[in-house]
Structure formats: C-alpha cells, structure tokens
C-alpha cells in the first residue's frame, strides 16, 4: 500500500508499505528518519514517542495505514534549523543524555508536557514521563533538564 503523511511539516509518501508495518518502521526504514527509537516495539518504553496530530503517541503501536493523511512530528522536527528547542538544549546541558537511546522519546514527551503545563511541579514531571523508560540516568538529571527547559521557555 501507499502511505501519505506530513512529517515535520513536509508531505512524505511511502510506497510498497506492507500490511503490519508500523509508523515507526515507516519513519525509520522508509523515510530515513531513524531519530525515533525502537527499544521495545511493544508500547512499553516510550522511546518511539512522536506527535501524531499534535498528541504524543508510541509510533510502534500505530499501524502505518492509520497514519494516512495525518500530521507527524518526530524528534528530528523539534529543532528549528540549527536552533535546538529548549528541551533539547537542556537535556544536553544538564547531562540528561547518556547512551541517549531513550532521549528522542523523552524529548517529545517533555516538550508536550511543557506546552501543556508551562511550569510543571516535580510530581507532574514524574507523571508525564512515567511511560518513558531510561536505563542509564536514574532520571535525576532528566528532572533537572525538564525543570530547566520549562524555565527557559518561560523567558523566551
């Protein structure tokens, strides 16, 4: 089948997509956007989180066909050209990135949180990110980064 999606503001088309391919597979293997990660492909880890019509979703749980005609933003779409989004900047600056495999999904989830709740409390941050597993950091620096990003966004 053929799938048409808007990805990071651009119209993209994928041909010869198999039944059963996920949006994650289409993004990574057919559209050349490997930023969204494939840690579990079971909807459990959040590494593949993307915006689907403005709402965070696990791309591994979305069938490619379900994405037809919809709007997708991946981690590759968070920065504006050379300018990183504050969330991206804070993750680097606060040491919230170690191996970085969880990072793209966490960035989308954290970006969404700060859009909805500009000044989140620690409990709100923890709840919003509870679906994103990270095996390296112990999360403390991720909390730092999200607090920092919220503060940065508030002044911009």
């Amino acid at each position, binding site marked *: 089948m053929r799938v048409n999606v808007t990805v990071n503001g651009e119209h993209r088309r994928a041909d010869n997509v198999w039944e059963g391919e996920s949006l994650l597979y289409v993004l990574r293997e057919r559209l050349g956007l490997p930023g969204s990660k494939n840690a579990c492909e079971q909807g459990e880890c959040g590494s593949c989180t993307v915006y689907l019509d403005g709402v965070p979703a696990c791309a591994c749980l979305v069938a490619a066909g379900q994405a037809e005609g919809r709007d997708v933003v991946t981690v590759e779409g968070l920065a504006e050209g050379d300018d990183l989004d504050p969330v991206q900047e804070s993750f680097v600056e606060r*040491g919230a990135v170690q191996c*970085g495999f969880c990072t793209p999904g966490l960035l989308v989830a954290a970006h969404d949180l700060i859009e909805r709740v500009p000044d989140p409390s620690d409990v709100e941050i*923890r709840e919003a990110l509870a679906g994103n597993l990270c095996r390296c950091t112990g999360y403390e620096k991720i909390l730092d980064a999200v607090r920092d990003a919220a503060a940065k966004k508030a002044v911009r």
Partner: protein
Amino acid sequence: MSAPARSPQELHDTIAGGIGESPLRPDGTLKVRGEFAYSSDLWHEDMLWGATLRSPHPHARIVRLDVSRALAQPGVHAVLTHEDVPGENVYGLKYQDTPALAADLVRYQGEPIAILAADHPEIARQALKEIVVEYDVLEPITDPERAAHDDTLPKLHPDGNLVRHQRIVKGDPAATADVVVSGVYEIGMQDQAFLGPESGLAVPAEDGGVDLYLATQWLHVDQRQTAKALGLPLEKVRLTLSGVGGAFGGREDLSMQIHSCMLALRTGRPVKMSYNRLESFFGHVHRHPAKMYYEHGATRDGKLVYVRAKMYFDGGAYASKTPVVVGNGTTLSVGPYNVLNAHIEGWGVYTNNPTCGAMRGLGAVQPTYAYESQMDKLASALDMDPAELRILNALSEGSTVVTGQVVDFPAPVAELVQRVRDLPLPPEPAAERDIRELPGGASNTTHGEGVVRGIGYGVTIKNISYAEGLDDYSTARVRLEVLGGEAVAMVHTAAAEVGQGLVTLQQQIARTELGLTRVSVHPADTSVGDAGSSSASRQTYVTGGAVRNACRAVADAVYALLGVPAEGMSLTGGKVVAADGEVVADLAELLGDTAIEETREFHHRQTYPLDPETGQGDAHVQYGFSAHRAVVDVDLDLGLVKVVQLDCAQDVGKAMNPDAVVAQIQGGSAQGLGLAVMEEILVKDGKVRNPSFTDYLIPTILDMPPMRVDVLERPDPHAPYGVRGVGEPPTISATPAIANAIRAATGLELPRVPIRPEHITGV
C-alpha cells in the same frame, strides 16, 4: 563495498574543558537531534535483513533440521545452519564452549539454530516458520546446587557441569565466636535491559573479508571470536563501533556478530540484524542468580571474628563470565570489612537455564546482598546501630583482605558510611500526604494508614578492572596537526562508548595534556590496538591511561622537533612553554605541515592468580567503595514499597568529570533499586516467563526517589590521575540498602531479592 549510510561519526568537542571539569558530551547534540547513528539505525543500499531461529526447548537433541522450504520462499536469499559455519563452530569469552549455531544438543531456550537473510524483516520472520526442526526433548537441569554436587546428572558439557569451584581459607577456618548469625540468601536473575537492541550491519568486502558495524563493549574480543568462526584471518574481519544504546555487561558476549557476517559473506550483500525486545531477552546473557549460605561470628563488642560462606552461581547453558563471577564472588565475599578468619566456597555451574554472564557489579552484587543482610542481622543480635557496626569493622588503607592482599591505597570505608549517614533525612511524613507519594501512588491504595517507614544501609567493595593475572591493557593513538591555522588533536582508540561518557573523557585528557582546545575523537574500530572491554569500571583507568601516555609521547615529539629537552617543558594554550613560563614556540607555527602521531599502551599493575586450594593471592588491581542509605515506606497490608530517598557516598579517587560521575552513581543506583524491588527474569523449568518490558519491570521515573550523592576524592597513587573506577559500586550497594530498609520497616527476614509484595504480606 562502501561504508553504510549513517555510519558512526567523528565527534568534535562542543565546549572546552579539561580534567576535573564537566564539559558537555560531544555526542550530545547529535543524540538530541535524533541524528546519532545507533547500530539499529545503520542502513545500506541493497541491504538484507537477517533473522534467527531459536530453540523453544531448554534441553533437547536436534534429530532433524531441514531448511529447504524456508530457502524456497520468495525474497529469502540464504538460510544457514551449523553446517555452514566456515570456521570453528565454537566461541566464548573465557572457555570456548558456545556453538555459533547449535549442531546436535540444545542447552537453553532461545539457543540459535539457524539464520536467514531476506528482503524485508517480515519476510524473514515468516520464513523462519518454514524451517523444520525435530527435537528429542530432554529433561532440563535447573537446580544449580544439584548441578554442582550431583555426578549422576547428565553432563551438559564434556567436562561435566562444574564451571569453577573456588575456595578461600584465611586464618583459622574453624574459629568460634560469642555471637553467631546465619542466613540463606537468594538473588533472582536480573537483566541488563539496555534500551538499544542488539544490532549490527555486516558489509562484505572485496578482499573476501567483512566489515561489521555494531554495538558492543569490546571490539577486539568480538573480532577474535568472529574471525575464528568465519575461518578468516583477523585483518579480514574489521569491526567499527556504532552508537551503543547502553550495555551494562550485556554486550560482552556475542549475539549477532558471527551470524550477520556469515549471511553477508554467503549472499554477497550487506546484512542488518536487529533483535526485537523478545529476542533481546533470549539473545544476551543475564546476571547470575545465586543462593548463598552465610555465617558470621563476632565478639560481644561487635568485632567480626569469622565469616563462613558457601555460594552457588547459576551460569546457565554456557560458561561466559561464570569463572570470573566465582572469582569475584569469593574474593569479595566478606565485603569491605576486616575479618581474621574465613572459610568461603563458591561454585559456578552449568544448567539448562538461560546463560548468565556479565552485568554491572559482576560477582559482587550477590555476596554484597548476603553479607549486608548479615551485618544488619548481627547488629540486631548485638543490639548495635547498623552503621556503627559497619564502621567498627571497616577496612582501611593497610588492611589485609581475605585473599591476603594488602590494601595499599586509600580505602575510606568508615568515612563513606559516616558521610551517607550524616546526609539529611527526608522530613517525617505529614499526617495528610499527597497519595502520589505513597506506596501504590496514584492508584490510590492507601492514604497513609498501614504505611511504615524504614532506614537501611548498604556498603560494598568492588574490584576494578580484570583480575587474577590478566594483562588487561588499552591502546590509544593521538595525532597532532594544524588545521585552519590551529593545532588540533585527534584521539583514536578501540574503546567502546556505551553511554558512560568515555568520548568526553578522552577529549578532556587530550586537552589537558596537550594544552589545546580543539580535540576530536575518531570512531572506535579495530584499525587501532586493543582497548579491552568497557566493563569492570576500567575504561577511565586504562584507556584514560593510554590516552595520557600517547599525549605525553606526542608532547615529547614536539620538544624533539624543537630540539629542547622535555624536562620542565609543557604545552599550554597552543604554545610550548618552559618551566619559567617563557613561551618557547607557537605550536601551530612549529608544526606547519607536520603531523605528529603516537600510539601508546597502558598496562595496569600486575595481578596474580588465586591459589586453587587457599584462594590466597594478589588478585585485584584496585577496589572501589560505595555506601548507600535508603529510606522506604512500606504498605504492610498490600506489600507495596515506595523508596522515599536513596543517598550515596562514593570514593572515586579523582572526579575526572564530576557531573558524569554523579550521573553514573545515579544511574547505577537505579539498577540496584530495580534488583531490590522489581527486576527478575522468571525462569521455570528452564523457560523464561517474562521476556518483555510489560512483564520484566525496570524502574521508571516514578520509582526513582530523589538522590543525594556525596563524592569523595582520595587519589589512588597507583592509578593514572589517581582515578578509581566508578560505574559499578553504586549498583551493588543500593540493593542491600533498600532490602535492609524494608526489613527495618517490617521486621521481616526477607532473604530473597527482588522483594515482592507477597514476601511482605506473606500471602
């Protein structure tokens, strides 16, 4: 054939910063942009997808294997079995006992039997189902204690079912004491659960060899094992490290290395293999579960008199790191404490359970849980404060450990316990509490009634680097040249960045040693000498040492070029500077078109094997120490645990990158928390019951409490820059601290981790 698209990038510095500072990771920006090439992101025009057929049985004989139907499927390009292994069908880290593809006997559920390559991963998966295997299913051996002692069991390997037995005898092994406590402790099978799947891309080369791009912890050991199985000389099997999504020991053993190369060589096309999560649970080794019998004797005033222990480590189907686990487990069995008399025995065995190998804290996690449980039991028998008991018995510089080795470097164990004890405690729970902060959280299972609080300690000792006589070294190549009018350095090693921050550290060392701001790190590959493994908390020590040595050789070459004696000279701010501060030359001008390149090794000081009878010997290079204090709330009715606070004090010798050190301690502590309260691969009759992130739980951001980290720096005079390995100790001491806190809260024995709700409620 060419390199893959999205191959590993050279990493340039983002922000200057030398040793002792905390510059940002050079790969951080790539990672947050989603542009960093992990092994599962590799892609090559024309590539095929590999897949693996695995045994559903933990123990079986293969009576028939027929791949013809699978090979006939459209889109399938090769189907290979043990008969197609070009070289020797056996590999292994210490013992060569693991077949690349099972030939006749299957020893664990998930053992690879056949591999194939197809146009699409789905075609590959479907084609696997067309492979016909007939098994003669056998009774699995699953009890490690029996496997150690019962000679009537079938032999899983030609030499029997014992991988290693080690005894340690110190002083009078039959000593007696006033106060005696004993216990039997068990630890479940933990998984590394790194997020980046096992994956790699093998590209056939024109010379008949193969280039493999992959995620691993040790390129050269993979190269040696893979080349042997492929029947190729080493130089024809070239490995390049791609982005690694965590490792924690789980990438020490081979997974897809030989398989992807076999398929690439057979089809003449690039082959990518990438495990999904289910396969990942079967495709890598886990932490050894253990059963440990401990007895501690002490005087009435709390001085340890003796320790006796027997410990059984379940190695599963193949040896992997079991010999080392037995070595570490026994030599570290009494912990960071002074004991005059000891009698310790450890067994590592083969069973039909999943193979166990390296995981963070190798061989020290198991005994630490046991002896720290014992220390609390002893404190309670003596009516002493648990922290005081530990301080009273703490090892210090000049102590002799149970193997007879003298600790000839700082060992601030008592201070670590004091410091972690002195960190502020969380406030006492208020009458009205936010339910989200209680055990059970937002599921609203309690409003604070039935919830009790407990505090517990855990302290550990872990050997750094490889032990027992291994010459465990690293190599670095450093190139100095002028680019764009500025002197710049390039560091090239084969050391694996697995997320811990080694690339940052290499830059920091080169900047400091060469007095430069611009330093880049070449992708790690096998075109430079061996760097050993990114494990055993050793890379900062050995690769850090190698980079230092190579930089110093480069500096010496600069002085030689200038014709001045090296004595008193230094490189600072891009200049050659004499002892009196006078600028002797500008580096960029001096070098012009000349590039200086030097390659050096770093070998740590020698260690020695243990005496097989007495277990005496200077087996270890260095020890790391850490102490945790945990505060927990436990819902007694439901058995739910909430870790309220987890604090750590650790000595790191020298904090090369203080922020990264703290980050390692936080991440390691989270894995220790996981083992204490949730993480276990459930194995029944040799079969894994929970191979998914739905059922194998790792801590989320809701499970991790706030952490205070207190970092001590007591330089080790024998180590480069005084460093002490950092990565492992925090994982080890976190688990018993939490277990002890839960015991303090509940008054229960809790002789097994992970501690599950039913252990607390008793139903």
